[in-house]
């Protein structure tokens, strides 16, 4: 401030109450309002609609039903069964995803390339690696919810579609990250093994896996945690578990049942979160 008033002796010293950058700020504000307007129109954003008498009545009755949450023994037993199914869908899905991802990652990773020991990778291995990468991109680009919608059509309602959806999307994600983890390892032991004539699998087991095992396990556990969250969501399209139950209670506007299931779901996510954090911490 002192320097500023020293250079501009002719003008009055700027008042300390005025923001020196107010012009720019005002222009940004106006520009963002101009940008915001089409967004509000496109999303049909009319929150006051929620405040009209009929809508308020329905909402109030639904939310009023939250208290007290449903705790009848029969209902709790059903929720417990569906909660286990949610966990089971996530676990089975991730187990299959691991089965899918491990070979894909081993094929895709450049860390196990024999031909690149002598300089550039040969054409055929390069094409095979790129094709595997493309397959993994295709698997994980399709959201698991879309996979589930497709499988519900083919195999019908139930946990099979949920397990398959998680297996495919997560297989792509795990494969990509596994390949990257293997590539970020210290390459020297692997290259030495390969150069001395060991097979790729041997080089993997003795050169890469000892280095990468904690990180690979940690990422798999993290994905399991994500799968539990996503298996609830998959239930909404009919893939079984807590989500499917929540969807049918919502359609019947049974607020008390929804409240119980939301509480169970929050507890489940917190539990999976804590377990996964503990496991990953102990890997470090």
């Amino acid at each position: 401030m002192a320097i500023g008033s020293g250079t501009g002796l002719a003008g009055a010293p700027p008042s300390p109450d005025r923001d020196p950058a107010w012009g720019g700020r005002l222009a940004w504000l106006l520009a963002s309002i101009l940008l915001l307007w089409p967004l509000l129109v496109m999303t049909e954003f009319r929150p006051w609609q929620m405040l009209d008498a009929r809508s308020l009545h329905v909402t109030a009755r639904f939310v009023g039903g939250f208290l007290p949450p449903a705790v009848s023994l029969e209902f709790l037993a059903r929720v417990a069964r569906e909660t286990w199914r949610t966990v089971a869908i996530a676990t089975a899905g991730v187990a299959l995803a691991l089965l899918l991802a491990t070979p894909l990652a081993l094929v895709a990773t450049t860390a196990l390339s024999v031909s690149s020991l002598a300089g550039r990778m040969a054409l055929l291995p390069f094409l095979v690696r790129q094709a595997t990468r493309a397959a993994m991109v295709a698997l994980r680009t399709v959201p698991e919810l879309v996979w589930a919608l497709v499988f519900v059509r083919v195999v019908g309602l139930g946990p099979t579609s949920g397990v398959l959806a998680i297996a495919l999307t997560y297989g792509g994600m795990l494969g990509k990250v596994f390949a990257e983890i293997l590539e970020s390892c210290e390459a020297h032991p692997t290259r030495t093994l390969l150069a001395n004539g060991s097979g790729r699998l041997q080089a993997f087991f003795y050169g890469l896996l000892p280095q990468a095992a904690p990180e690979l396990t940690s990422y798999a556990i993290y994905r399991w945690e994500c799968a539990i969250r996503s298996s609830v969501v998959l239930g909404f399209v009919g893939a079984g578990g807590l989500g499917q139950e929540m969807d049918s209670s919502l359609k019947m506007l049974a607020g008390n049942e929804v409240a119980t299931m939301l509480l169970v779901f929050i507890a489940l996510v917190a539990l999976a979160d804590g377990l996964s954090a503990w496991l990953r911490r102990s890997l470090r």
Partner: protein
Amino acid sequence: MSQDRGVGPMDSLPPGLIELRARAAWVTLAALVLVFASFWSLDLHWRELWSRESAAAMARFLAEFFPPDTSAAFVRRVAKATGETLAMSALGTLLAALCGLLLALPAARTHSARWRVPTRMLLNALRAIPELVWASLLLIAAGLGPMAGTLALALHTTGVLGRLFAEAIENAAPGPGFALRAQGARPAQVFLYATLPQAAPQLLSYTLYRWENNIRAAAILGVVGAGGLGQLLFYHMGLFQMARTATVLLAMLALVLAVDGASYWARRAMTR
């Protein structure tokens, strides 16, 4: 990998082998039991999946996707739904950034515990419920359409951003704030001119990161009826109009790939 990264002299001692190995063995055993119990308890229809009829049904199902419906009228509708998806994600993220900032102030550790604990609990609850569950809850209040989706994105993202923002505010250096306070500035002025400018780049980068996530989420949110591409997908799939379903699916995949590419490119440009 990590054992050899010794920190102190105590770490150079060999670890307690029996204890360490036992814990790893127990955890592995528990994981295996969990996997087997999962497969055993779920009534999975593998046999039906691999049967000849099911393979034929799958092939027929996939064959119906081709050729995708590329009539001008339908493509225009898909384009409109794509725009709606983008608008939902942008507005949802914007609302979430504003609400997240408001909630992050009391949630930051720089404030008294009286407000911090309930605000943190609120943020955790908002974050724990996925967008899609929020959307199906909001359908009751907001009706079918993109507004429910926008609000659902906003609620979940508020929980995520509120927590991240609170951490960013906690990490701002306290010096400038002290200097302003010593000059007699009011708390609001201290926040606007000392804390916010320091945290702003991080707040912006978190917001952009969540926007990227929200575009992906907004594309599928519609399957419960909350607008965007997802709603179109669910509608046409429900009517077994597979050619149209294919077009919507292609638009969805193109959107996801475009977002991935843009984010990869932007990250490279920023880190260079």
